[in-house]
């Protein structure tokens, strides 16, 4: 059997896909260019020369209005949290809790004001901190950095403050530490990542806040509270815990205001809001609108607050704070100052003049930024820049004229004021339009790379299809279709590298890889074309296949049309945003339709009915065979599974009437103790049931008889794993306060049990790799008894007591003759479980991984996992039955129908394990199963969250070889029934019938070919879905929904593709490993 070529071929195809994905991603995902420039005091943006008032020392661009600012960031402070409505009789837990803000606003209307603070999506904390300090817009791909916080390179507020010798003191979320290393005069960081921990950060801040404020050794004090956000993630906004948290924040603000001096400005801001489930990251109304509250003990505003709080974008805070503190505005800021904070306490005209000055500086800074940006990058459209430029220069010109008039005192007050106001509105218009232009066009694509990536993926798909249709794979195939293309690719890579070195250009690894991939794809098609005619000629010498005729080919095409039509439907659905949004319903629908169509087709072909002309049937009437009823029952079970799995769906915000499944939140959030206990018992019982089912399956096929370490592990390790998981769930779901003194023990247990599971699963997988054989050999060659036959030989042994169905395997290399001789030489070996040795290894691996993935999900999602296993089992059986009913003559090729339904089930269970292809729906909690505090590296949490997200992809991809193996495993019962009635002389034939998976070993050539074909088919279907996503992203890149729907879908699909393909390789290599072990086992047997 050729093991390495098969694996190598599949790995090569995967690499081709990966390079296509990488190339496309580099062209598609937005990358705004960050300018390295930074503002400084000496920039000529300072007040124009006619304004001769001297700047006080320590001020830049504008005299500072406040020497000190306290910025309190309450993470995820939604606007509704800060709003106070005294008319509400029964406020929700999050309503009317920040009463102190309301008190300030009503008692001192000129000192305090509440704003609606609009965040730019993505509303992840790190993106928001970046926006709040640089005044610039986030780009899409930055979301990925949420695990690893990189220092901000762009000019920002903190850098400006430090540059101008101010002291910045920080306390709270340690994300800031990574973003602004060594920028703080003093800092108190607390770990932020554990969203289950509501109090550590907040209590830590409270411990230091008031002493620090009193000490006065600071110019900007930032306190970032995380409790509200974590409370939202853990319990959701509508929970008593949220009320507690907000009340705590209210008290904090009350005492903070007591400690403030008269020269201090207090800003209370939320970095983003939260959805009804307490998550954030997207751009829905609830996530985007945060609260901003401004307060100072000296009067700030000249007017009373408006009825409805004003809405301002978050970037506006940066220029405002910079100018209030008297430092330069950060270079890349595109925000607009909040002019009413600069009004001072003069008359209307002087107020307007002051505001005009501020706007002038702001506009000049934005104009400077746009100018230098347009020199570096071409993504801002030239005509719009031109328009902005005109707007700016005319406004500046008018400003100069107006100022000259003011100096000559030519205008009377009311007229002047109206002129000033109109000028202000022109500056405002300029700033807002500039921001709009930036927002619009920082979606910068590389069309060439996108098309290149698209065509690489498409060509790889074609390759998969072409290669999977080839009948046999000989050495010549591997030579011409694997080795030569690889050499082509290598040669191209070397040439490109050399060219780069010679031209002294920077080596782009991604480009290099994609060139190599393209070359090797070309090489494949070239060699395949040259190789194909030869095959055809070879086949031509054998008359029957060549003259198969048009009709047979047409029939083959028609047979393909059903599954391929469904696949086409699925791919087409990726192009419509409403279908992508509703994919959780579309996939099960397609799966059910595919299976129904299969049944209909079998019926239409008359495969389900008793063949015409049998004795008990009158002519012209037909009835169903017994096997057909089995098949129909299986289909009913499948439909039931599909329907039930719909109860575990997560919701997208685009479907407002959707309610997320009640099974998604962890048991700990359940307030009804009885329901909690019931659910807990149900989950544990079902888990135990899974173990029981797997064990009885293994026992049924005789794989539990030997005393190998692996078998022992299955017998004793599996229940132990279940025990550990059950204990972990018990500890994790118990109420936090109820345990009192046991708290410390619980802390330990919460860590220890997951680690025990990790360890056990790891040991199990290791054992599986070392000794994948679950075969019990009974060597009876020495025994003096008569011939050992399957059903007579060992009636009294303990193995029989275990209700084992023994399988006998005889070396088939021996010819018919030697087999006849065997009767006389009275020697044979009975091997239990040899017939299902490959599947047993896969089933054990799948069960172990299933345990691991269940641990990473919340407790009640284990029900969904059980449905997953059941559905996979039923699908395998349907596939087997349908094949045997259809009278498939090619046992070594898996039909397209099976592969497509397998993949549809995989994506169906992506949704049914509570996932959605959007960022807020990611289960971040998975990163803390077994880890209490912050992670030291980012790799481990990424792996855990990734495993959680792509759980069904992993399981189905690893289990993919079962599609090939299952018909062999199941061949036994049916044949046994038929043959057992026959006469005893035909015993030899009976023995033949029980070979099961050993049939695969009989023809190693065909086995390896079958595995390769299966892998290629799987990759083709996966690749077709990916291709559809990629094409959708290309075609709809200017679609309104691209960042909300298509781009996340593409990201999830491509990540899913990577995970699936790697797991597919793992699954196939596991089968190969078992094959190795079987080979050595046989050679040892022969030696004995």
């Amino acid at each position, binding site marked *: 059997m050729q093991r390495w070529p098969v694996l190598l071929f599949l790995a090569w195809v995967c690499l081709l896909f990966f390079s296509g994905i990488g190339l496309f991603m580099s062209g598609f995902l937005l990358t705004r260019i960050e300018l390295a420039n930074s503002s400084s005091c000496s920039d000529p943006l300072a007040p124009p020369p006619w304004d001769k008032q001297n700047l006080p020392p320590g001020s830049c661009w504008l005299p500072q209005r406040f020497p000190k600012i306290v910025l309190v960031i309450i993470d995820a402070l939604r606007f509704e949290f800060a709003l106070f409505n005294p008319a509400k009789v029964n406020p929700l837990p999050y309503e009317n809790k920040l009463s102190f803000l309301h008190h300030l606003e009503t008692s001192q209307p000129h000192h305090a004001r509440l704003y609606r603070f609009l965040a730019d999506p993505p509303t992840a904390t790190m993106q928001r901190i970046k926006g709040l300090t640089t005044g610039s817009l986030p780009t899409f791909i930055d979301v990925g950095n949420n695990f690893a916080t990189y220092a901000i390179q762009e000019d920002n507020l903190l850098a400006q403050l430090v540059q101008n010798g101010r002291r910045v003191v920080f306390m709270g979320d340690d994300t800031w530490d990574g973003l602004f290393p060594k920028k703080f005069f003093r800092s108190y960081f607390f770990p932020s990542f554990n969203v289950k921990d509501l109090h550590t950060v907040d209590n830590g801040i409270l411990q230091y806040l008031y002493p620090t404020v009193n000490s006065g050794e600071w110019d900007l004090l930032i306190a970032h509270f995380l409790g509200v956000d974590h409370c939202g993630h853990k319990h959701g906004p509508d929970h008593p815990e949220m009320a507690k948290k907000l009340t705590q924040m209210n008290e904090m603000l009350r005492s903070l205001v007591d400690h403030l001096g008269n020269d201090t400005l207090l800003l209370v801001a939320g970095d983003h809001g939260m959805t009804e489930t307490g998550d954030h990251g997207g751009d829905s109304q609830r996530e985007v609108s945060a609260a901003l509250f401004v307060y100072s003990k000296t009067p700030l505003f000249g007017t009373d607050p408006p009825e409805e709080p004003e809405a301002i974008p978050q970037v506006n805070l940066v220029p405002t704070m910079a100018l209030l503190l008297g430092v330069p505005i950060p270079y890349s800021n595109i925000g607009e100052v909040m002019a009413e904070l600069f009004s001072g306490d003069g008359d209307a005209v002087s107020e307007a003049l002051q505001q005009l000055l501020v706007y002038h500086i702001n506009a000049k800074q934005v104009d400077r930024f746009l100018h230098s940006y347009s020199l570096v990058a071409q993504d801002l459209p030239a005509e719009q820049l031109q328009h902005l430029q005109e707007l700016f220069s005319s406004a500046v010109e008018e400003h100069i004229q107006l100022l000259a008039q003011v100096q000559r005192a030519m205008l009377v007050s009311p007229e002047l004021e109206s002129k000033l106001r109109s000028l202000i509105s022109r500056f405002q218009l300029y700033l807002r339009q500039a921001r709009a232009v930036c927002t619009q066009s920082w979606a910068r694509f590389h069309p060439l790379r996108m098309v290149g990536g698209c065509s690489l993926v498409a060509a790889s798909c074609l390759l998969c299809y072409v290669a999977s249709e080839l009948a046999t794979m000989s050495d010549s195939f591997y030579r011409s279709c694997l080795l030569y293309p690889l050499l082509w690719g290598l040669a191209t890579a070397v040439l490109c590298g050399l060219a780069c070195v010679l031209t002294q250009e920077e080596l782009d690894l991604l480009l290099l890889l994609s060139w190599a991939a393209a070359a090797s794809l070309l090489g494949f098609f070239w060699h395949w074309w040259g190789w194909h005619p030869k095959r055809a000629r070879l086949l031509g010498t054998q008359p029957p296949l060549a003259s198969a005729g048009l009709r047979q080919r047409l029939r083959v095409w028609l047979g393909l049309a059903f599954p391929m039509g469904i696949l086409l439907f699925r791919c087409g659905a990726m192009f419509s945003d409403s279908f992508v949004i509703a994919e959780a319903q579309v996939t*099960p629908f397609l799966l059910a339709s595919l299976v129904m169509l299969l049944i209909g087709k079998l019926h*239409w072909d008359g495969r389900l009915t008793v063949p015409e002309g049998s004795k008990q049937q009158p002519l012209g009437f037909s009835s169903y065979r017994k096997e057909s009823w089995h098949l129909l029952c299986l289909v009913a079970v499948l439909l039931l599974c599909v329907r039930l799995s719909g109860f575990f769906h997560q919701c997208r915000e685009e479907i407002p009437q959707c309610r997320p499944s009640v099974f998604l939140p962890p048991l700990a959030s359940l307030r009804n103790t009885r329901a909690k206990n019931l659910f807990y018992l149900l989950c544990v019982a079902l888990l135990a049931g899974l173990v029981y089912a797997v064990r009885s399956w293994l026992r049924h096929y005789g794989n539990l008889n030997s005393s190998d370490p692996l078998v022992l592990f299955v017998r004793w390790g599996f229940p132990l794993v279940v025990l550990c998981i059950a204990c972990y769930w018990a500890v994790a779901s118990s109420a936090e306060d109820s345990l009192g003194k046991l708290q410390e023990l619980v802390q330990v247990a919460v860590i220890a049990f997951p680690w025990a599971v990790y360890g056990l699963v790891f040991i199990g997988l290791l054992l599986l790799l070392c000794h994948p054989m679950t075969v019990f050999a009974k060597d009876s060659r020495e025994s003096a008894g008569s011939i050992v036959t399957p059903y007579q030989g060992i009636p009294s042994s303990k193995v029989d007591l275990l209700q084992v169905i023994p399988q006998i395997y005889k070396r088939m290399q021996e010819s018919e003759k030697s087999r006849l001789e065997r009767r006389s030489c009275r020697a044979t070996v009975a091997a239990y479980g040899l017939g299902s040795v490959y599947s047993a290894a896969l089933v054990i691996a799948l069960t172990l991984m299933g345990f691991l993935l269940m641990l990473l999900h919340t407790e009640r999602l284990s029900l969904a996992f059980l449905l997953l296993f059941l559905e996979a089992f039923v699908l395998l059986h349907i596939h087997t039955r349908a094949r045997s009913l259809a009278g498939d003559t090619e046992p070594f090729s898996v039909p397209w129908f099976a592969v497509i339904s397998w993949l549809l089930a995989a994506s169906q269970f992506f949704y049914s394990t509570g996932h959605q292809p959007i960022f807020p729906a990611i289960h971040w909690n998975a990163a803390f199963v077994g880890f209490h505090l912050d992670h030291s590296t980012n790799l481990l949490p990424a792996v855990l969250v990734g495993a959680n997200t792509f759980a069904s992809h992993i399981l189905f991809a690893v289990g993919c070889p079962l599609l090939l193996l299952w018909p062999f495993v199941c061949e036994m019962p049916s044949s046994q029934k038929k043959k057992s009635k026959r006469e005893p002389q035909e015993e030899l034939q009976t023995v033949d019938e029980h070979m099961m998976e050993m049939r695969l070993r009989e023809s190693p050539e065909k086995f390896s070919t079958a595995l390769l074909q299966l892998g290629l088919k799987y990759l083709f279907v996966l690749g077709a879905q990916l291709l559809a996503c990629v094409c959708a992203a290309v075609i709809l890149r200017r679609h309104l929904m691209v960042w909300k729907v298509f781009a996340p879908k593409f990201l999830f699909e491509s990540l899913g593709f990577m995970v699936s393909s790697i797991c597919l390789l793992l699954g196939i290599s596991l089968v190969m490993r078992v094959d190795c072990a079987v080979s050595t086992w046989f050679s040892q047997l022969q030696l004995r």
Partner: protein
Amino acid sequence: MKEAELRRLLAANLLCFVSIVLTALVPALFLDGFSVLGTHLTWLCVCSVCVSVLNVTLCLILKPSPSSKRSSLSNKISRFLKCCIYFFMSCILFHAIIVLYGAPLIESVTETFLFAVLLSTFTTLQCLCLLGPNIQAWIRVFSRNGAMSIWENSLQITTMCSILGDIQATQNGSETEQMLLGFTCKLFLQ
């Protein structure tokens, strides 16, 4: 003979078609605020009743099934009862299939059930009229080379088409329609 048969078949199918169109239009004259989408429950009722009445009368008039032997009254009654039971069972079966396909379990039971009834009138009732309560004959008709007369051929085609057509609508009624509409519109726009 064949010509005449063909003409009768055509007439029957045309009548069916016209009656369905009429059920969508005529009740608007008698009932206030009737429309197919707005008051879909009424329409479902009216449509299924009309089609079933038409089918039964056509069956009685045209007598397409050649195997109508002379039989006693009790035999006829038992045959009729059997037909009723079969029809009811097919309604239940369709209901179950629709629910398995994703229709809500409890919320809109009436809608789902009426839909199942409509589906049964289009499929099972026609089978009952043509072939009688004889499942084995049904199985024969719905397989390759199984149809023996034009009537049976027509039955094959209409039944399969109605099942295929309705499978699309099965998935959550109006939502799917909107999605399909949106999808086609998008395809045209781009």
